[in-house]
């Protein structure tokens, strides 16, 4: 018997035949996935919506899962989450296709919930890290990111204010954001996957 064969079968695999078992798969991974997404979006509500859409997508596509073990199921789940998060970063919108198809609603946080989220995800610490990383960006990149992202100015105006071409403004913002994105994308202490 191989090591893999000895590992218990994931609830996701069982849910292909017995959909009522999906809740167990959700309970196994929901909190860790939520923390993973909260640390990368820095916004609990965004993380909750992405978590909900990720599991709704997993439920709708559970028959497409070809693995068997818990590790394979977790990898499959987090790949869905990363895809959704990538689309969110690119477009600023969260796709809710699976949630809408399944008729699900995204709950809101209570005040107690938000306190627990801050503690679980350590968002204060990560926000401080982002702030420090932002402060340590080369001044030209920092100014460009600040005008574009914080002040939400269009690129032509960013370029005007900095006395540079629009193309240069775009390049500086892009480089600055890439640095900050790498910080958020890096594994965080306590991440489970």
């Amino acid at each position: 018997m191989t090591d893999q064969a000895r590992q218990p079968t994931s609830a996701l695999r069982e849910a292909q035949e017995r959909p009522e078992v999906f809740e167990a798969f959700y309970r196994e991974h929901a909190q860790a996935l939520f923390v993973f997404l909260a640390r990368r979006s820095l916004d609990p509500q965004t993380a909750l919506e992405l978590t909900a859409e990720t599991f709704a997508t997993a439920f709708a596509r559970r028959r497409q899962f070809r693995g068997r073990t818990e590790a394979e199921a977790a990898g499959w789940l987090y790949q869905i989450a990363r895809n959704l998060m990538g689309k969110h970063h690119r477009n600023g919108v969260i796709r809710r296709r699976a949630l809408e198809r399944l008729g699900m609603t995204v709950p809101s946080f209570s005040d107690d919930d938000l306190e627990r989220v801050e503690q679980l995800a350590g968002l204060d610490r990560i926000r401080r890290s982002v702030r420090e990383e932002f402060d340590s960006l080369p001044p030209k990149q920092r100014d460009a990111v600040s005008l574009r992202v914080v002040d939400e100015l269009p690129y032509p105006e960013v370029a005007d204010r900095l006395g540079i071409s629009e193309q240069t403004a775009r390049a500086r913002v892009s480089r600055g954001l890439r640095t900050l994105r790498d910080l958020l994308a890096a594994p965080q202490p306590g991440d489970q996957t």
Partner: protein
Amino acid sequence: MNQPLDIDALEDLAAQFRQLGNEAATNRHRRRRTIKRPTRPVLIAAVTAVVLTCTASAATLVLREGTPLPEAPAGDFTADQLPLPETSRLAGVQTTDPAGGAPWGVRVFSNAAGAHCFAPGRVVDGKLGVISGGVFRELPLRGPGTCVQFNGREVPLGMVARYYPPEDRTAIYGVASPLVTSIGFQTGIRSQTVIPDSDGAYIAVFEGEPHVRRIITLTDGTRQVLDPPRNP
């Protein structure tokens, strides 16, 4: 299996997945039973076809399209309430009615002062209108609305809550600035979160006149809670 989660909102989602799983399991058992008796699918398909045909006919009969509503006479509204030409359009956001039927939507436009304006209605065939007595009547594209000038975090959105007595519905709708990432609505029995569409428009519709707590989440993660006084 039922190990509680630390966050209530995640527990709420768990309950929804439990229900989905149970429903899917029930449907699966039904399908299995059906396969054992080959004559039943034919009967079920025939009955379903008849029911669908009747339902479609009934729906057509129930909702008729009337003449579009005329534009309000000039002078009834100030320029600030009316759209600049070519700016009025139906936003992409829609929400279902609690009892089904035509969804609710929002028309958005700009006024002469450059403010962001909005007006709600029911959506049928891509048109915004009102439904009364089983008749849908399109609202004029140049009709009035409510307008808001965003002002950073001070005024990140415009919001109106309006009760519609004939339908016994409360619609909460408006437009939000790009600073707003989501708007949560909490009643005593349910919560929902709405993401403003590309126009910033959003709408949520409730049965009756419930007390609705609204939670506005901004791009920096901060939240503004609007908790209107309860009806006496």
